[in-house]
């Protein structure tokens, strides 16, 4: 009989674990992003891949530097949890695919250092780091961040080759007017501001129906709305995310959009176009579901999602920017503590207000 057991320290219960892990979750989310990302690489060619790679590597580098600077232990393990990688990936999904390299590097700095580590690292950031970076980049560098490229699939003749792609990413080749294009939302906004009726504007090349194929100008995260949706459904099925936040976002956009479109079709895009355009799908399934910056309860997540959706619609329809998902998410991130406060679960045996419930008259239980 082995009799050498002697505990070196005190262990608290429970003495078993369900087996879930942070890394596990992050890897699943990355897996869910893969189809849309690969489609984006095909659609926009080598520059898209280079920018993605640069953003990811920069995120890892800045995470490493921050952790070193703060004197954290076990940097390797923290890097390995995949959170910085995911932040970089999500950020890259929202950037114009042919943006120059420094956009990715500066974005990674803002996301990791200002958006995350300054707040105390993983789990402490108030705002979604990728969205912080996205918004900061958009405001700081409006030009490169609003220059979109028309789809040039890798298989097409006009697509830039490896070396050309590198030159584009390194900023040594400028986009010609012929190559650049506007996103659907951007185009609609411009036309509207010229006083053109949307019904006329959105015919032909700009027909919203084309959105289903995903072949149009935009970021990796907005061209392939259907693939993003598929990734999101995968996360839903595997239990990584829950349905409340995505549904809230989609409903928050679709309902006001449908109403407004019914009232004034010339001034407001229809719900379908809203849902398939911009970063809505990415925002609904990958960003609004970010654990750290969204409410903890299902009820809270639903409110959060609805808020994101509604603000997105308001910005898109009435604001100055054609797209508003990132702003909407940041605004709702700021409200998360308040939502959390008012959507606490009811404690068993207590009323919502926290007082013990009144016992029922004795004897009724039978």
């Amino acid at each position: 009989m082995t009799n050498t057991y002697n505990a070196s320290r005190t262990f608290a219960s429970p003495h078993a674990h369900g087996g879930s892990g942070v890394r596990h979750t992050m890897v699943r989310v990355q897996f869910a992003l893969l189809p849309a990302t690969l489609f984006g690489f095909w659609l926009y060619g080598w520059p898209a891949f280079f920018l993605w790679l640069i953003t990811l590597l920069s995120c890892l580098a800045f995470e490493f530097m921050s952790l070193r600077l703060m004197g954290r232990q076990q940097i390797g393990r923290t890097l390995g949890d995949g959170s910085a990688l995911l932040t970089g990936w999500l950020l890259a999904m929202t950037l114009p695919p042919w943006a120059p390299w420094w956009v990715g590097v500066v974005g990674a700095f803002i996301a990791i250092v200002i958006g995350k580590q300054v707040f105390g690292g993983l789990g402490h950031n108030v705002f979604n780091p990728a969205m912080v970076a996205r918004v900061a980049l958009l405001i700081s560098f409006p030009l490169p961040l609003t220059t979109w490229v028309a789809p040039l699939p890798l298989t097409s003749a006009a697509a830039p080759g490896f070396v050309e792609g590198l030159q584009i990413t390194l900023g040594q080749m400028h986009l010609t007017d012929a190559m650049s294009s506007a996103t659907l939302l951007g185009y609609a906004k411009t036309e509207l501001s010229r006083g053109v009726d949307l019904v006329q504007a959105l015919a032909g090349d700009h027909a919203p129906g084309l959105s289903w194929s995903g072949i149009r100008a935009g970021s990796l995260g907005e061209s392939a709305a259907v693939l993003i949706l598929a990734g999101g459904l995968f996360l839903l099925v595997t239990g990584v995310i829950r349905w409340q936040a995505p549904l809230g976002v989609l409903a928050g956009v679709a309902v006001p959009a449908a109403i407004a479109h019914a009232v004034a079709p010339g001034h407001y895009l229809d719900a379908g176009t809203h849902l398939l355009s911009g970063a809505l799908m990415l925002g609904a399934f990958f960003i609004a579901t970010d654990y750290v910056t969204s409410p903890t309860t299902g009820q809270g997540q639903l409110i959060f999602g609805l808020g994101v959706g509604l603000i997105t619609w308001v910005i898109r329809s009435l604001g100055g920017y054609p797209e508003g998902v990132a702003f909407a998410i940041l605004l709702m991130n700021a409200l998360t503590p308040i939502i959390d406060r008012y959507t606490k679960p009811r404690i068993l045996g207590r009323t919502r207000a926290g007082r013990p419930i009144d016992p029922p008259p004795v004897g009724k239980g039978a």
Partner: protein
Amino acid sequence: MGLMEKFFGLSWGIHPEDHKRPAADAATRTMPVPERLFVSLSQHIGAPARPAVLVGQQVKKGDKLADPQGAVSAAIHAPTSGTVTAIGEIPAPHPSGLPVLAITLESDGKDEWAELQGCPDPFALEPAEISRRVAAAGVVGLGGATFPAALKLSLSQKSRVSTLIMNGGECEPYLSCDDRLMRDEAAAIVDGIRLMLHATGASEALVGIEDNKPEAIAAMSEAARPYAEVRIRPVPARYPMGSEKQLILVLTGQEVPADGRPGDVGVVVHNVGTARAVHEAIRHGRPLVSRLVTVNGACVGQPGNIFVPVGALVEEVLAFAGGLKKTPERLIMGGPMMGMSLPHARVPVVKGTSGILALDAAQVADRAQEPCIRCASCVRACPIGLLPLEMARHIQVGDLKGAVGVGLKDCIACGCCAYVCPSHIPLVQYFAHAKGEMAAQERARLRAEATRKLAQARSERLEREAREKAELAARRKAERAAAAAAAASASPAVTEGAQA
């Protein structure tokens, strides 16, 4: 209530892998009495029992070793016949490994019962008499909480409970002692239940058994068939179904108020093992001196359920169960979710020991802590509706009051939150620490109050003494003056002065 039931029925708790078989299916064994038994005096909630024997005294099996002390306490009896060789400190079956007072009993090998007073027709007895006999037998709740059973019986009598809920949930993974008892001794359990119904005055008993124990459900249904008042109610297998509040909610739909007792909703909950102990105590007069213990875990040679005399060392139980195949990663008394890790194996089995688990590293699945990512898995898992992540954050920075504000006092330490936490944060340890700290602060506060009273008493005493001294001095002075005056004026006053 329907919505509420749906809400709680669906969302609380967790589904841990139960690991109950094959140990649950192995035949029950009885462990021979070891040479020496260490009978702890703290085997129940409440004040430790007071020794009632002297060192060197000979006792028979079932003789009383210690008397209850105070309102909440239980008697302790000799698990075998032999000689009391010592009354002193031994390591407690507790994570701290701190000492506890125990009576050491040297077995004489005969295992002779003392004269027992059974009762052939207990239903003729007064309910109060049943409670008294249960108390005399030292029966405590065998589900793990070890609350003196007699006290619960008489309390329920006073609060007129209508329903007796029998807890056959046994939701902790690995454990199967209740399952085994229900399979093997269903008749005794049902008899115990009927005795408890009689003692409490409740009109019906609902026996909640998780649906992952079909054999137990079958055996119990069979045994309970003649008695309409005893109903077997299968409940979904879900942890922590065996928690009082959850079981009451599932079986009756009633919610126990946060600061209340089950009696407030007209129910009382007992464990099925307790029912058997009551049966033994009333029908045969046998006090609680042994119990069925599940010995399980990857490191155990022959996992199974073993009748173990109270006071046997864990190390001896493990040896009887086929020894250890390898050095365990963790040795646990109780279940993996709420049980206590043991500092070593030389601690005694007590009345509340439902299981002894020797788990290997894979079963413990312990990993280094990572930062909280607010995934809220713990919020969904919490059967009470608390926010474990927020409580832990408050405690992390020493803000105990804040933790209480978000529900620390409602926490039942079931361990669901820590079980599901992807960051492996020892949430339960935070809560246990905070509860301990709060208790310590409360003790300090009470002590400071007592100190202030003592200090006040002293200053009053000093004042009084000073005043008395001054008065005395004044009186003497006056007397002297009077005496002098008297002496000066006339002589007849002298006698008066002498009298004074």
